[in-house]
């Protein structure tokens, strides 16, 4: 009776190939999932920044006289807006917003802008078209970003829009990043 060869070189080679494809799939699967996760985070960051900016430049807030309230919290104010009418900045509201964002109310400001997700930070500034800085909140990305332009980084959404302040066109910038 002849003996059959059960485990031939064909099978060894086939197993090696199968292992190669399997390992390729395992390696790429993790990377692809990582890329998808980053893309999702980035999308959420962009949308949060865009919504916050629209809220600031297109609404006067609720209530509209929020800047004159004595108590500033998320119960008294349901949304924050900086304009008296669309794209016309109210300097009183702007000053109040800058002052609140620079003191202990920063967390409340984040919440009112819809940036309450953990790790989100923001910076807001208003400058003239020729670059003269008129208003600015004090926060900026930490040393992690160094001196690099944080608008170019993947973990930062940087929006630039335009409005009128005392009749002059100004550049309004909002940077939102994850720390």
């Amino acid at each position, binding site marked *: 009776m002849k003996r059959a060869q059960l485990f031939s*070189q*064909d099978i060894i080679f086939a197993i090696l190939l199968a292992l190669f494809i399997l390992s390729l799939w395992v390696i790429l699967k993790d*990377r*692809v999932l990582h*890329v998808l996760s980053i893309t999702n985070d980035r999308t959420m960051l962009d*949308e949060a920044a*865009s919504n916050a900016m*629209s809220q600031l430049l297109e609404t006067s807030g609720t209530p509209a006289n929020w800047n004159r309230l004595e108590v500033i919290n998320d119960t008294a104010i349901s949304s924050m807006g900086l304009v008296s009418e669309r794209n016309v900045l109210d300097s009183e509201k702007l000053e109040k917003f800058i002052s609140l964002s620079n003191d202990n109310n920063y967390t409340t400001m984040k919440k009112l802008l819809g940036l309450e997700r953990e790790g989100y930070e923001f910076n807001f500034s208003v400058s003239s*078209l020729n670059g003269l800085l008129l208003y600015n909140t004090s926060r900026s990305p930490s040393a992690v970003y160094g001196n690099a332009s944080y608008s170019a980084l993947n973990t930062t959404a940087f929006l630039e*829009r335009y409005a009128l302040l005392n009749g002059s066109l100004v550049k309004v910038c909002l940077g939102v990043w994850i720390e």
Partner: protein
Amino acid sequence: MVRWLRFVWVFGLNKAFIFTLDAILALMLCSILFLFTYSMLTKFQYSGVRETLLHDVSSDLLTSLEKNGTLQNAVRYSRTAEIRDVLSNASSTICSTITVYSSQNTPVLLVMRADCNCTGSRSAAVRSFVVPESNGTLSEYMAKMEACYK
């Protein structure tokens, strides 16, 4: 037509095995597909917000120029310097053109940012406004801003 390709893989003795062309092609296709998918995903960037922003910026500029009277003055005095100034000093990544049309849909004014070539997505926004004439009547105009990423 060659249907089969014979590969001889020598492991020491005169032993060999046959590996088909179909299998090689399938293997290559599978690997290419994996790598292609991965490279596509790493290059992928969500652009929805970017396009919305382009429209928002156009809308902001038209609204602001209308509200501070720049558009009206440009039509009344055929003066384009102020608008050109704004377009030149606005975002460094955006190329833009503003065209003003009369109520008969005739272009009366065209201002574009100099030395600017579009490479990215485009967007357009329009805004109507009125200009008081010397005889006391109001003439209606429409400003259209087209913007694109450099």
